[in-house]
């Protein structure tokens, strides 16, 4: 990860905008922002994150690489698409935000302990293991992310929901022993590996 970061810094020197254009989904549209602020005003989560899309785009153009890639903003996006619908310059803002989140994550610069990011990681690792989401394990790992005591507390708090799901046969306790997977697990892993290889190549993560 750090190597990728160093490589990127090396390759684009001071031109963070060029780096974003080359590596971030829809990044080539960042330069078209006209700083009207409609996205910032439209975002329902506006008050809850550090930088609005408008600021993120301005920071990219100002070359503030560390601040942008270390921002929690991209992870706070709920994909409501309000900004994208309203943007007078038709920037695919939601896509760019996701693209930036992905890029920051892969470079290892995304903020540590950011709940959305952690949960997304958890979800991905869980789903990739057997090709199917093991809901019991996903839930448990999420509850116990902060240690044993807080995990037990959080789980107890949700016990009525858990029991309800169990009674309705929506939750199988046996899944704790590994759970079920797709038929051709080997083939599935090969597909994911290939996809990653392609993406890495496209986004410049392979040397």
């Amino acid at each position, binding site marked *: 990860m750090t190597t990728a970061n160093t490589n990127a810094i090396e390759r684009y020197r001071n031109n963070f905008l060029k780096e974003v254009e080359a590596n971030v989904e829809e990044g080539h549209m960042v330069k078209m922002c*006209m700083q009207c602020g409609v996205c910032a005003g439209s975002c329902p989560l506006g008050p809850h994150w550090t930088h609005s899309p408008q600021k993120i785009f*301005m920071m990219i153009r100002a070359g503030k690489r560390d601040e942008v890639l270390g921002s929690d903003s991209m992870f706070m996006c709920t994909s409501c698409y309000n900004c994208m619908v309203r943007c007078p310059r038709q920037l695919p803002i939601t896509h760019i935000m996701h693209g930036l989140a992905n890029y920051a994550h892969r470079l290892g610069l995304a903020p540590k302990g950011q709940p959305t990011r952690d949960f997304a990681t958890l979800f991905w690792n869980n789903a990739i293991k057997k090709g199917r989401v093991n809901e019991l394990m996903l839930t448990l790992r999420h509850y116990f992310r902060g240690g044993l005591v807080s995990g037990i507390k959080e789980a107890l708090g949700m016990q009525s929901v858990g029991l309800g799901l169990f009674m309705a046969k929506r939750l199988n306790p046996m899944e704790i022993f590994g759970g079920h997977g797709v038929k051709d697990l080997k083939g599935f892993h090969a597909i994911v590996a290939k996809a990653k290889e392609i993406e890495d190549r496209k986004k410049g993560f392979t040397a």
Partner: protein
Amino acid sequence: MNAPATPVTPKYAAYICSGCGIGDAMKVGQLENIAKKEGKMALVKSHPFLCNAEGVQTIRDDIANEQVTHVCIAACSRRAKTEAFQFDGVAMSRANLREGVLWVVAAGKEHDEVRQEMAADYVRMGCAEVKKMKQPSGNVKESSSKRILIVGGGMSGMTAALEIAEAGYEAVLVEKTGALGGMAAQLWKRQPFKMPYAAAQDTGVAEMVAKIGATPLITVHLNSTIADTSGAPGRFVIQVAQESGAVSEVTVGAIVQASGFTTYDIAKLPELGGGQPNVVDQAGLEALARQANGGAIKRADGKEIKSVVFVQCAGQRDTTGTHLSYCSGHCCGTSIKQATYFKDQNPDIDTVVMYQDLRVPGMGEDFYRSAQERGVIFTKGTASKVTGGDSCAVTFKDLILDEENTIPADLVVLATGQVPNAGVDLEAWNPVVTAAEGGDEAAKAQRDVMRTTSVLKLNYRQGPDVPQFKHGFADSHFICFPYETRRTGIYAAGPVRRPMDILQATDDATGAALKAIQAVENAALGRAAHPRSGDLSFPTARLEGCTQCKRCTVECPFGAIDEDEKRFPKFNEERCRRCGTCMGACPVRVISFENYSVDTVGSQVKAVEVPEEDEEKPRILVLACENDAYPALDMAGMARMNYSAFVRVIPVRCLGSVNTIWITDALNGGYDGVMMMGCKKGDEYQCHFVKGSELAHYRMSKIGDTLKQMGLEPERVVTQEVAITDNARVVKLINDYVAELDKLGPSPMKGFG
């Protein structure tokens, strides 16, 4: 000096229309009697549909067979059916029975009496007015010049010259420098003005210069300035002085002033690096780009430029009063254009445009986007400090990220604004002249120096240039007639009038060229230019009554009146707009038009029958400006809004033409109040004649003493500003005023009149 008398014995006729419901709501027979007995009309007819072919023919026949010379038409508003009721060679008045009575007086039998009285008064007024009117004879000029002078050979001036020549008129182009092209010729390229608005285009100056050279109708004087301008539209005499000192004289009919702009002095912006090496203004960058001739743009020291920052609004939109307070409009587009010079030559050059608000009028948004696509960085920020030298730096406040920042660059371009070449500011000129005429030697010297900075060197008593409007730009009637200055026949075009880019300047010059053509044609026929276009009447003064008070010469908004050797007013009819401000100003009432005079209105004021006090029917005189207030009143009628039947409305050419005698006459005659309705005054004026409304307000503010002498309350005379869209408001103003006067009680002057 008096206007020629109507050659034949006058014969007066009145025609009363009973159509549009007038006949149902009013007793037309009684109105006929009034026209005959009180109005002393020789011929009175009524017709059920006066504006149809048969009705109009009746009038035409009477003019032809009965030798009718004066016609009073009592029908609809003077603003309606103007084509039907147009009779050449006769004087005509219109009594407004439809919009002025039928449609505004509440319906129903209980209002029959006041409605009839109102209609009767309007018939009396129409008859009284027409008897005082003369048909304007006009004043055709045999030797009127239709040549047009253009001062300034830049983009605006060249465009005007070509447009004038294309329309078949002679143009004389005077240019101060040794070559045509002006500022545009200093540019490498101009902003795109054709689809797809994505790349800078050739200026086209060379083609225009060649075309001018090949046009026989255009005479060009290079290295020349105007040494003197005297006369009036149709007969301006211009002394063209060459740099060598040789002077030639040329007679022209109208003038287009396209004297352009100079760039704001960069040296006045030391905090933004003005004067330091590698800090240039936009014109400076154009010079570098022309030097590069399409190759890599290099600094003055020969170093190739790899990064450049454009600082917008440098010395513009300044709120501290130190620099230009306005936005020059073109500079955002110009900086975008200049950034593309770099990007098109080498996309790796860093170009930053630092703006506060990017303003790209016209199709500029497309160009802006195309620059963004090229990778030009747009940063919203305010530059606080620029250091020049080998490696420049711009310190600025980022307005989006709310932080101080610094960008290094090889070159910094300051987008300074346009400063108009408008010549002498008359507001500074006039006190100097007054002092000089008082014998002050220093003032005399100062006056002579000031005169050398004049563009037109007008030989007018009002000063050597056109008045300046805002921020030193040449005069323009911004709301209605943008090309018009307050000097008839002189049209300002291009950036001397307001800040603008090349495309706007060429449009502007085309408009001014066409206005100049109108002016020379009108002058030749002795007709008014705008806004009373085609008016053949002109003011004359009965000089034996003149006291030489100079009010007319001073107050004429258009500088039409000079003083002759004996210090009497000398009317330059071709400069006159026929507003009547001189007539309103004259304390001895010696100024009049053939068809509009102290008498035409005064006789109407006196023709109204003012009821006795015990009848409890007040009379309120409304003097309404015919440009805005009168149409608004008409429209109130069209919308069937009701106002009091106690008012009597007289349209006036401009509130400036209101002579206080009308007001004192009305109040002496027992009217309960006088309301004047004119246009908006002040900096955001809407007065067609610029100063008329303002002067009227000023004059009325002084009427208190007169009222006091008469033992009347100041509320008896009010002045209102209305716009043409105020149809609902005029109704409220009238009704509120009637209610206010009701509280005040009847005028104590009743019965003495």
